[in-house]
């Protein structure tokens, strides 16, 4: 087990009202698995991702990465955690517009300890021939694949993807998901995909469904649905 969270609660104070985004959530991320975190808007899945990604702190509870408690880390400690161990894929790609695909990846590999080469990373997402293109010259799907290459190039232990297909059409979305699937298979990086899209759930090894800040159920997929069969 690479990541273990116990009793996570998060309360936002919105004026007079307290919003319980998370209520005593227990969750694990297993070594090498692909977990789909499914939930409607407001279910608490993003809050959960923020906490396990080291971007936010829980009001209560603990998160252990291996044997380190993230709750005990200060800002700089969390930055180092994200830098060394976590790869992020955003809904809107967030590539640096002034850098080519290769440079977007090497921006990260230049500060990583044991990265793969930017060329290999882009090859992994099928963009070996688009390396010298700028984001403005690429489609949304291509940009998202560059973002995935950027996230995995530093060989993180954990890959966190926040609605990675949210801004894409179905076909392109499926292509991106297949890339994530393949990266998970070839590199063994523990991956968590957040989505509100139940159709995607089938591709995961494990599906955690969230509702009203609680884990509603956890399902282990015995046989993962092939991506061509997924429709939404």
């Amino acid at each position, binding site marked *: 087990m690479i990541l273990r969270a116990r009793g996570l609660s998060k309360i936002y104070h919105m004026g007079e009202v307290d919003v319980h985004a998370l209520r005593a959530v227990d969750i694990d991320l297993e070594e090498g698995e692909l977990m789909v975190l499914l939930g409607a808007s407001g279910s608490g899945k*993003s809050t959960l*991702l*923020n906490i396990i*990604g080291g*971007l*936010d702190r829980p009001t209560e509870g603990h998160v252990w990465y291996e044997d380190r408690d993230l709750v005990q880390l200060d800002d*700089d400690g969390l*930055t*180092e*955690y*994200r*830098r*060394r161990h*976590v*790869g*992020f894929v*955003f*809904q*809107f790609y*967030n590539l*640096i*517009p*002034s*850098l080519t695909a290769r*440079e*977007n990846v*090497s*921006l*990260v590999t*230049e*500060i990583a300890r044991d990265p793969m080469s930017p060329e290999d990373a882009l090859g992994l997402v099928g963009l070996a021939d688009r390396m010298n293109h*700028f*984001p*403005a*010259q690429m489609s949304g799907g291509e940009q998202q694949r560059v973002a995935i290459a*950027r*996230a995995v190039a530093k060989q993180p232990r954990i890959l966190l993807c*926040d609605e990675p297909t949210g*801004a894409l059409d179905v076909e392109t979305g499926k292509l991106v998901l297949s890339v994530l699937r393949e990266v998970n298979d070839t590199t063994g990086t523990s991956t968590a995909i957040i989505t509100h899209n139940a159709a995607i759930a089938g591709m995961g090894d494990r599906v955690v469904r969230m509702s009203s800040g609680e884990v509603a159920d956890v399902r282990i997929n015995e046989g993962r649905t092939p991506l061509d069969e997924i429709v939404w």
Partner: protein
Amino acid sequence: MKGQMLSISLVVATGITTVVTMRGGHDSLAVAQADYYAETRFADVWVSLKRAPETVAADVARLPGVAEVESRVTALARLDLPDIEGLGMGRFVSIPRDGRPALNDIRIARGRWLAPGARDEVLVSGKFAEARGLAPGDSVHAILNGRLRVLDVVGIANSPEHSYSVPPGGLYPDDERYGVFWMGRDALGSVYDLDGAFNELVLTVAPGADPEHVIADVDRVVDRYGGQGAYARDDQVSHRVLQSELDQNRVMSTAIPGVFLLVAAFLLHLVLGRMIATQRTEIAVLKAFGYRDAEVGRHYLAFAFVAIGVGAIVGTVGGVWLGGAYVELYGAYFVFPELDFLLAPYLLMAAAGVSALAAALGAMGAVRSAVRLPPAEAMRPEPPPSFEPGPLEKAGVGRVLPSAGRMILRNMERRPMRVALSSLGVAFSVAILVVGMFAFDGVLYMMDLQFRVIQREDLTVTFQEPLSAAVRYDLDRLDGVTRVETWRSVPARLRVGHREREVGLQGLEEGSRLRRIVDRDGRIIPVPSRGVVMSRFLAEQLDAETGDMILAEVLIGERRSAFVPLAGVVDDLMGVSATMSRAALDDLAGGGDVVSGAYLSVMDDHRTEVESGLAQAPVVATVASPGTMYETFEETLSESLYVSIAFLLGFASVISVGVVYNGSRIALSERGRELASLRVMGFRKGEVSVLLLGEQALVTLLAVPLGWLIGYALVALVLASLDSETYRIPLMISPRTYLLAAGLTVAAAVASGWVVRRRVNRLDLIEVLKTRE
């Protein structure tokens, strides 16, 4: 937005403050000068002579082009001042029998006019009275024509002739030791055996008459009375210094505010442009609701006018306040009966006008792009900016750079104009500092050369009348005197072809060591045994080159004239000099082996003693100590320089802070999302700050050499506007000045970068995951 608008207002305020302060100060001085001159009927021409009967004044009055003439008696006399190191000197000027001078009238500040027929009453100049704590009723001891007189101070007076009051041979006012005294014509005339005669004429030139012709005519008339060459108002010391100050002031009061307003316009352009980019959707909604282009445009223009208007108001108030202090500072050097800070309505209107112009200029481009935007297009987010490798990268720079470096470089290459203008802005801040601190370099170099290389004597003695050269043995015998070198000076007219010029022709001993001929690089030129060595400035006026023969007409004694060869030209820094060996001068001027004075080297512990001993000697006119002069100068200079440098530093900081702060705020606004996502990916705060501020750092670094260049050019411009006859400050800027100017600007830039850097720590990382810009 608040911080950015504030910084723009500050730049405008500084610009308007400088224009109101400097231009207002200039106007105030010019008005005070004009009023003062008119009221006191300030003369146009002066001429000193040895002795002439009163009828000569009437002859001069009849010359064509002469409006009004006044004869008077003037004399330089030693003062016996208690508790003072060095020698006190007084310039004594006669007042006509009937009470008031017709020309160069004086104004009584305190006390009363001289009583008719009073023989011991004097009026004393204001600065001297102030420095010495003299009031009507006090008395002053003076040695008039070798006799000690106790003079009663009955009033404190001022004259336009002495607005700027410099002791003879001095460079700066020395109010502790030098003052002007007005005395009755009969009283002063009888002391100097000038009853019914005079030794100076002042006159005004009739409107339309050519002063040059008048001067030539006057010279001809007074020639036989020992005339020493008439000169025009432009050569009158007090007027010349004041005029040169006013001229300089006019240049600076236009150039400096211009820089500030241009910087303000540029910053406004940047900030408004960014504001409109982030408010695309709002603009679209307004337009969709049916707002007209003009109304949308007006909204953004209003921002510009508020930012600039606030600056203009603050600047005007600050300028009026500072202007008072500025004029007061002038009052410390120049005496005017009424010197108040005047704020001419035209100046206020001009300040408002140029501010509005800057606002319009800055807002124009940005507002036009807002107005042009079709509503439907504006509803959509701005398309992602497209990039490509710029020329620098194509040249190969990119290969050696890490991705972070390329990011910075491409952002800069994408907006070369913005980078260029930002650099130019910061460069002005460097340049302003270079100009400010150059004053130290140039003036100190010049003074150092003058007082440590050229004038190396401890005491300069001038005799009342030329004495036999044998006087050197008397001087040599004085206790503590280690070296004596005599000198002679005669007024002469030098002529080459139709060009001529009057100078004091100086004779130095061959092998002279205490006083030397030195060029601007410190090279020592030996006193020639034959011929004359002159300042390049003079040689150029005469259009003479080494080897040319120069006709020298001596204006005193037997009034001999002879051709002398130009033995050399010296590229010197101060004044205008023509030097010969003393033997050659004796041959030329006649009168035997006589000397006008001597330079003495004196042991330190005997200085005061020798000085006061010489001061008592009736044959001695003045004893000066260059060392004291240098000290006075350094005190005056460093005080005023520190004040002006403090101001310039403030001005320079306002610019560099304005440019760098706004530049980084805009970068943060444009690329905040980019930077926040890097933070999410594990980039440290420092690394992200480098990406944010790297561009500003490069802008600042580019600005440094550019600022040095502009500074150099500005220094050259300022030097060109200086009065080059009195001094020619060498254009030598020390490495220290360059480094300090760069260092201070960089420090201001770093400080503003630091303020913006703190915002990097507050980037909202979670928001980045959610929203699209």
